[in-house]
Each structure stands twice: as C-alpha cells, then as structure tokens.
C-alpha cells in the first residue's frame, strides 16, 4: 500500500457515461491522510445526449454519443484542470450500474488511457460516486442518503463499511417516471425532462389530482402512478378530463400533482429511515435531487425532526465525471485497483456490494 504521508497531493481523472451524460472531471485530494484530506474540483465537464421531445435515449445512440464526444470532452477537462499526465495518480471509470452500451463505450476509452499513460485503473460504483460527492460538497457527516435519479431510487444509510439500502423502488425509478411522463406530454428533453416538468408544475397547483400513492414498507412503486398520469393526460387531450372542482385541468396541474405525489412518497420512506438510524441529516443526491420542490418538501420534514437537508446543485447532482474521480480516488487511497483484465462493466451493481474501506 502507498504511503500517504509521502504523497500529500493525489489527482484522479474520472470518466462517467452510465446514462445519457458523458462526464469527465479531475479531482485533487490534498492532506496527509484519508481522514484529514480535502477534495478540490480541478475540472468538471459534461456533455448530454438530448433526444427529441416524446422520445427517450436508447443505449445504442447514447453509446455513439459518448464515443463521438469522448476525446473532445477529455481534452477540455484536462485543459481546464491544467495538470500534466505525470501528476495523475489513477484513472477512474464507472463500472456500473447503468446502461450496458454507454458504460462499455467509456470503459474502452478508460482502459486505452490507462494503458497509454501507464496509470492504474479504478472501477467505481456509480451510486457510491453520488454519495461520496454529495458528502464532500455538503459536508454532511453521517446522513441518511436519498439517491434519486432516472435509473435509481434508494434510501441509504451507512453502517459498518457498507452503504446499506433501507428502501428502494420496486419497479421503475422515480426519475424514469418523470422522464416518461415528460414524453407523454411531449415536453422537451432539453436541458432535462425533469427540469421542464418542475418549471411547468410551478404554474399548476389549482387542483391536486388523485394518483395512486404507493409506499410498501420502506419501498415505493411508481409504475402505477405513471399509468394513471398517462391516462389523465389522454383524457385531458380529448377534453374529457375534469379535476375535483369539475373544471378541466392543464398539463401544469398534472405535473404539479405528479411531483407532489411521488415526492411525498420519497419523504415518507426517508423519514422512516431517519427514525431507524437516529439521524437528522438527509443528503439528496442524483439527478432528481436538483428538484427544488423535492428539496423544499424534504427540508420541511427534516426541520420537524430538528435536522436539515443537504443537497447540491446540478453540477454535482446530475451525473458527472468528478464524482467518479472522487469516489475512485478514495478507494485508490485505500489500495484498491481494478486490473485491466477485470475492468468490465456491469448493468447491475448494487450500492451495498462495495466495501467502503475509506470510512470507519
């Protein structure tokens, strides 16, 4: 194992492409040891594959996007960080979970770079990347983590060197529910479908439409809500949809009702996890974590419990390369390496499979 006292500065390149964002970033850890080290973002560049309104991003097209932008984004990230290759300690890439083809496209480039530059490779769990970046940015020491994105919905708490999953989505992820409803309404996917739903929801709120709120123990289900929201959208289209007040409802009312319902479910399971763990900090990570209404609702709950909510902005919430660099470098500092021969990708890679050696 490396002697950390002799290397007060460690630098890692992070490569992320598990979904429709290609993210490349460079992080610097300084300080003599794991416990006292501080993380500095040297660069964090992202390029998003945006599909036309009414459509989602398909694995093949997304992988092609990542391949065609990889060199361009890598050059930008390296130039912005202004570090030389010799200063770089390791190259970190997303091993999973995510979509197979996009993951593999970035892994191929990661291996090539590691071999060309003669640097060790570190495979990173995408979810752990989100959690560690969230902790580093907000300073939340021992939070219950709500990880909400287009592909993942998990309530997580740390115990004995694992991020333990307390509750999760039983079917589709919360972000997938939002993304697909945006497709139903033909809302643009630029900059993000969820962002556009959030903006539209601000104009709604005259009525709260009834959607099947589904919490089962610590878990949630979103597919029934999506089906019902799609049905209501079809009724609205035909002009037959009426709200509880007998008046027609609008796309904004639908977006508002969808957000209120699914976020209330997330707040419920998060609160229960906080009660179990005895924590009054909530850290929200993942793309849906940018949603200010979710942050507001979570904040109200945390305040009632005498605690607070920790969230980051879109630079760190939405998939990015820097979180992969950061989590990878933490693992690297404990001696973790991914040999080239084993540097595969995996679509399924649960958060609790990772041994979190860098925490006590």
């Amino acid at each position: 194992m490396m002697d950390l006292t002799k290397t007060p500065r460690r630098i890692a390149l992070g490569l992320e492409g598990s979904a429709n964002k290609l993210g490349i970033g460079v992080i610097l850890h300084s300080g003599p040891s794991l416990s006292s080290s501080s993380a500095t973002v040297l660069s964090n560049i992202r390029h998003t594959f945006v599909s036309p309104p009414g459509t989602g991003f398909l694995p093949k097209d997304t992988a092609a996007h990542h391949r065609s932008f990889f060199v361009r984004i890598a050059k930008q990230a390296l130039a912005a960080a202004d570090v030389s290759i010799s200063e770089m300690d390791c190259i970190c890439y997303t091993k999973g979970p995510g979509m197979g083809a996009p993951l593999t496209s970035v892994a191929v480039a990661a291996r090539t770079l590691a071999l060309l530059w003669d640097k060790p490779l570190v495979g990173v769990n995408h979810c752990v990347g989100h959690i560690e970046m969230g902790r580093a940015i907000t300073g939340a020491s021992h939070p219950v983590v709500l990880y909400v994105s287009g592909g993942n919905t998990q309530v997580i708490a740390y115990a004995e060197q694992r991020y333990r999953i307390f509750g999760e989505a039983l079917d589709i992820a919360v972000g997938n529910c939002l993304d697909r409803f945006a497709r139903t309404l033909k809302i643009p996917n630029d900059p993000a479908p969820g962002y556009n739903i959030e903006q539209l929801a601000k104009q709604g709120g005259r009525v709260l439409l009834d959607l099947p709120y589904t919490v089962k123990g610590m878990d949630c289900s979103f597919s029934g809500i999506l089906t019902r929201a799609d049905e209501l959208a079809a009724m609205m289209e035909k002009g037959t949809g009426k709200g509880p007040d007998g008046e027609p409802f609008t796309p904004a009312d639908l977006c508002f009702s969808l957000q209120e319902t699914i976020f209330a479910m997330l707040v419920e399971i998060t609160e229960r996890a906080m009660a179990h763990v005895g924590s009054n900090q909530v850290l929200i990570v993942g793309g849906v974590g940018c949603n200010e209404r979710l942050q507001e609702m979570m904040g109200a709950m945390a305040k009632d419990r005498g605690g607070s909510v920790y969230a980051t902005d879109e630079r760190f919430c939405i998939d990015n390369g820097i979180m992969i660099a950061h989590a990878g470098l933490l693992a690297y500092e404990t001696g973790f390496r991914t040999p080239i021969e084993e540097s595969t990708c995996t679509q399924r890679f649960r958060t609790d499979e990772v041994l979190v050696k860098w925490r006590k």
Partner: protein
Amino acid sequence: MATESLEYPCALTLNVPFPDARLASVALRALQVDKELSSLVKRDLSVAQDEESHLRVEYKATTNRMLRVAVNSFFDSLALVLEVMEELDVDVMEARKASEAKTP
C-alpha cells in the same frame, strides 16, 4: 475444429496495422476485456505472431447477420481506441502543451 466451423460457418479475419507494437498491445488489452454478448458469435483477438504491430481479429458467427452486428460494434470500439491514441497519448499531449506554451 471441424465441428466449430460447422456451427459457426460465417467467419471474418481482420488484420489491423498499428504504428508500433506498443499501440497494438494497448488496443488488444483495451478491446479484449468486454466479452461478446451473444453465444452465437465467437471472437479471438491477438497480436500477430509474425508482425507485432498488427492486431489480429478473428470473428466467427452462426449467421452473417450476427457476424455483421458483432463486427460493426467492434469497429465502433476500435475507432474510439484509435482516436484516443491519436489525440491523448502522452507524446501528443506533451507536444500540444509545448505548442500552447509558445503561443499564449
């Protein structure tokens, strides 16, 4: 093997030349990690015995369609590897940095 050529009758062998043995080896190691997703396709990558700067790619598949899909996907990955080599190899990066330093 006779049985294998019966089961996988559609074959394609490629010889990809690289500037030197180092780059051929990098391409080999970067590309051989991901297994073929379909059991209907077999792939064998090696650095050519007689020519160390050549990457030898042997594909065998049950149908021409499977062969085409697999080889196309291989070319996509190979193109990325080549682009990374051309643009981000150590000497290229150093040369770029040096020329940027001269013309601020």
